[in-house]
């Protein structure tokens, strides 16, 4: 009888413990997701807004017949709503979690890029200014932070207008600043390729705008020579000899590097033609690809 009573008590004790443990586990699950969910939501929505800014509807054109791209136009009302909502969410998260420095600074960088993409240059600059660089963790974020002034300038430059002499000075600073970062990014090819391409475009734009043949040649050769260095021998061989990219058996990141080069190469040819310059490049492949127009 006594043994039976004791067994019953032990059973009830274990039951009680189990119940409490299960309740605490439920609590854990509830608490374990709150912050992460917020961040995931911010990342997803800001990326959606960024891709809208990058290209809205493949192949669509605007009223002038030019391919439509958000970057070249003022954002529409719905686009504005998207970036404003994302940016506000980032602000709210940072305000609610002031002690999460690494998280907050990563989000602040994301916010700056979002604002930059939607032509909010002053807000982007303010967001960059709020970043505490010592809490940035990744090569991408650090590099973008280091070239923030050049990014704001290049995104904000009116490309339809001719560059003034002061813009040329900024271009020179951007070319130097970007190259410094690019040189240290070999282990982070995505951001390296992006910054290298941006540098090439800046150099080509300067080469096209300048009224000096000598300077045009310098900008062009500097831009292409540095850009060509991010390409592997395999990249150059495929770019030069293989007209069928579908046969490339490589990652999307490599495909992107090779395919994006085509627009740069084409524009370099245009610069040579319109500026009447005779350029020789370090890379034999690029010399051949750009070629006489």
């Amino acid at each position, binding site marked *: 009888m006594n043994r039976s009573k004791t067994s019953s008590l032990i059973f009830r004790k274990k039951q009680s413990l189990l119940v409490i443990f299960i309740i605490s586990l439920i609590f854990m699950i509830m608490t*374990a997701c709150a912050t992460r969910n917020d961040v995931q939501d911010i990342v997803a929505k800001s990326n959606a807004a960024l891709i809208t800014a990058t290209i809205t509807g493949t192949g669509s054109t605007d009223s002038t017949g030019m391919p439509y791209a958000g970057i070249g136009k003022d954002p529409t009302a719905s686009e504005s709503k998207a970036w404003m909502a994302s940016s506000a969410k980032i602000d709210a998260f940072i305000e609610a979690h002031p002690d999460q420095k690494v998280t907050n600074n990563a989000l602040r960088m994301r916010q700056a890029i979002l604002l930059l993409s939607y032509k909010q240059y002053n807000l982007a600059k303010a967001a960059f200014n709020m970043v505490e660089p010592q809490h940035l963790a990744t090569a991408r974020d650090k590099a973008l932070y280091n070239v923030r002034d050049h990014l704001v300038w290049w995104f904000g430059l009116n490309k339809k207008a001719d560059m003034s002499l002061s813009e040329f000075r900024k271009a020179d600073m951007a070319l130097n600043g970007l190259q410094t970062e690019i040189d240290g990014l070999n282990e982070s090819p995505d951001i390296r390729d992006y910054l290298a391409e941006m540098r090439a475009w800046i150099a080509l734009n300067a080469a096209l705008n300048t009224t000096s*043949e000598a300077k*045009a040649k310098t900008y062009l050769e500097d831009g292409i020579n540095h850009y060509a260095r991010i390409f592997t021998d395999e990249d150059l061989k495929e770019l030069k000899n293989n007209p069928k990219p579908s046969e490339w058996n490589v990652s999307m990141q490599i495909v992107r590097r090779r395919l994006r080069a085509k627009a740069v190469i084409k524009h370099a040819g245009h610069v040579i033609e319109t500026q009447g310059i005779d350029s020789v490049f370090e890379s034999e492949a690029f010399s051949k690809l750009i070629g006489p127009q």
Partner: protein
Amino acid sequence: MISTEAAGLVLSIAQGVVKLGGKIDRLMAEKDAVTSDYIIPMPQVRRGPGGVEKKNELKALLQNTEDQIPDPLSPNRDEIKDLLLQDPSDPAQVGKWYKQFFPEKDIQPIIEPDTEFVKALQSAFPSMDLEDESTRYAAFCISAGRDEREIGYPFRAAMVVVDVLAEFGAENTTLFVHDDNVRPIVQSVLKRFSNPDLDTFTSWSPLLRSALSATLNGVLDSKESWQGENQWVNAVLNALATAREEAGDDYLLGLFQGKGYRLLISEGLSEAASLLDDEDAGHFEQIAGDILKQAAPLVQANQHNFREFFQEHWGDLFRAGLGSLEKHGPDILKDDSPLLRVTLMAMIKELSNTPNTDLISHETLYNLADSAISAVAVNPDLVTPDVDSPWMKTLIGSVIKTAADQGVRKLFSKKSFESMVNDSLKVFSDHSELLVKKPGLLQELTGNILKQVSAIESFGTEAVATAAVEGALNAVAENPKLLDTNYAELVSGFAGKLARLVADKSLTKIQASDIAAAGAEAVLLNPDIFIKYENKLTEAVVDAVLEAAEDNDANLLYGATLVDLVLQLIDTVSCYGLAMVDGGPVDALMGKLKEVLTAGLTKAEAELGRQLDLPALPAVLSGLVAATARGELSEIDPNDQKFKDLFSDLALRAVA
């Protein structure tokens, strides 16, 4: 019903689980924010005509319309012409005119690099569905790249678990550790281990430091549990605990970073401990605590190994020890000789205030000697407890005060100071009555002379000072009346002059020493005249001889001849000085002496080897001076017959 203990345990578990959830949530949120991809648009660029092309077209326009009437470029022709002459021309200005005159060509097509990429992608991979958001995302996303922190998220997640478990363990140590002695130690270590958020560490070094620090500090927190009977061990522990209270927890870790620190606190302190007896454990603890406290910020800031740390900071540690000794020294030395205590404490104080870089230098030795002497000078009775004679006590006190006032460095060298004092003491021991009459004499004499001479930094000036002191003391011993005059001042002024001549290389130190001794004792020849003219007669003699020697091209006056001449002239001046000054200014004496000496030297040049040799020259010249003083020479001219006769007569007597 469950027991209170069991309920507490369950609540503790629940608390830990909830904490674990919160921490993992934060960590995963950070991971998502940091490592998620971006999509960054590539800004557009323009195509259209280039700057060079625009400039060339404008140039052609200028040329082609040069003679047109009316001028289509009026009134801007000159402005455009000037613009195009520049290289490079401002592209914005060129563009403005180009747009005005060639609007049909000024088309600015825009290139969208991202759109071009999409086109290329579609062309290369026709089957790729770029309407699909995830496909476009994959095409454009830019990954976070290398995370430059050493510790990845998987390990940091594990650290979250360890952190929570440590906290749980600290709160429930009784469950795991039954030994009453060990439990407090485990509890302290776990408590400290759980204090920082381990998941916030992003590199190995701080994490390992934190773990080690938690262990060391935890052990020290519970030192009562494992302190034994060995009072030296207890003293070291207490010193460490005291140092840690001021310096913070990182201090202990710093000490243990490397072999050197271990040596510092284990072997070094143990060795020190073995040299002291048990009764000094308390003092040792205090001193060790002070040293460790001083070392704390240095240890924390140190990035190097112990060898470099020690090279950089041994002086700081040494001075910390000395500073502490200064504080606790009186207690430690309370049973020792008061003299030893006073001098040691003074030297310790001096050393503890000496900058590291100066610790090993002769300067420090001087300063140490000074501090010891100064300490004794304040209370000279400490040095002479067994000296019965009051005058000897006074004498020793006087010597010490002189040394203290001047400083050992100004005594040129320890050896010369010793010899000077020894010589002085010898004189005083023969004439102790001097000190009875004027106890501060030695101090006055040596002090004044040293002050004059030490202002001139030159090798050999100490010999002048020694000779002057010795000569002066002999003079005072011979004629105690000098004690009532300003004799000490006169001698010191003369010694200073000679020292300057040595420094200028006008005299050698041997010559100057001889002259100093003779000058000091010359007073005895005619005290009234020398005191009256404040020793300027002696100075006039020296000046006249030196100037005459310098003007003499044959260089007859040098070495012993020069000194001998000075000594003989001092004798002469003591006899005939008043007559030579003749109521006029004493400065005129020097001119007169020089005139006679120069004339005598001119004559001597012709007579050397005929009726005169060098050793006889001083006697002849001083004879000429004496004759002049007596008025026997009206014309001081080496060609004058009377001068020639007197010279021959003096030479004859000197050589004989």
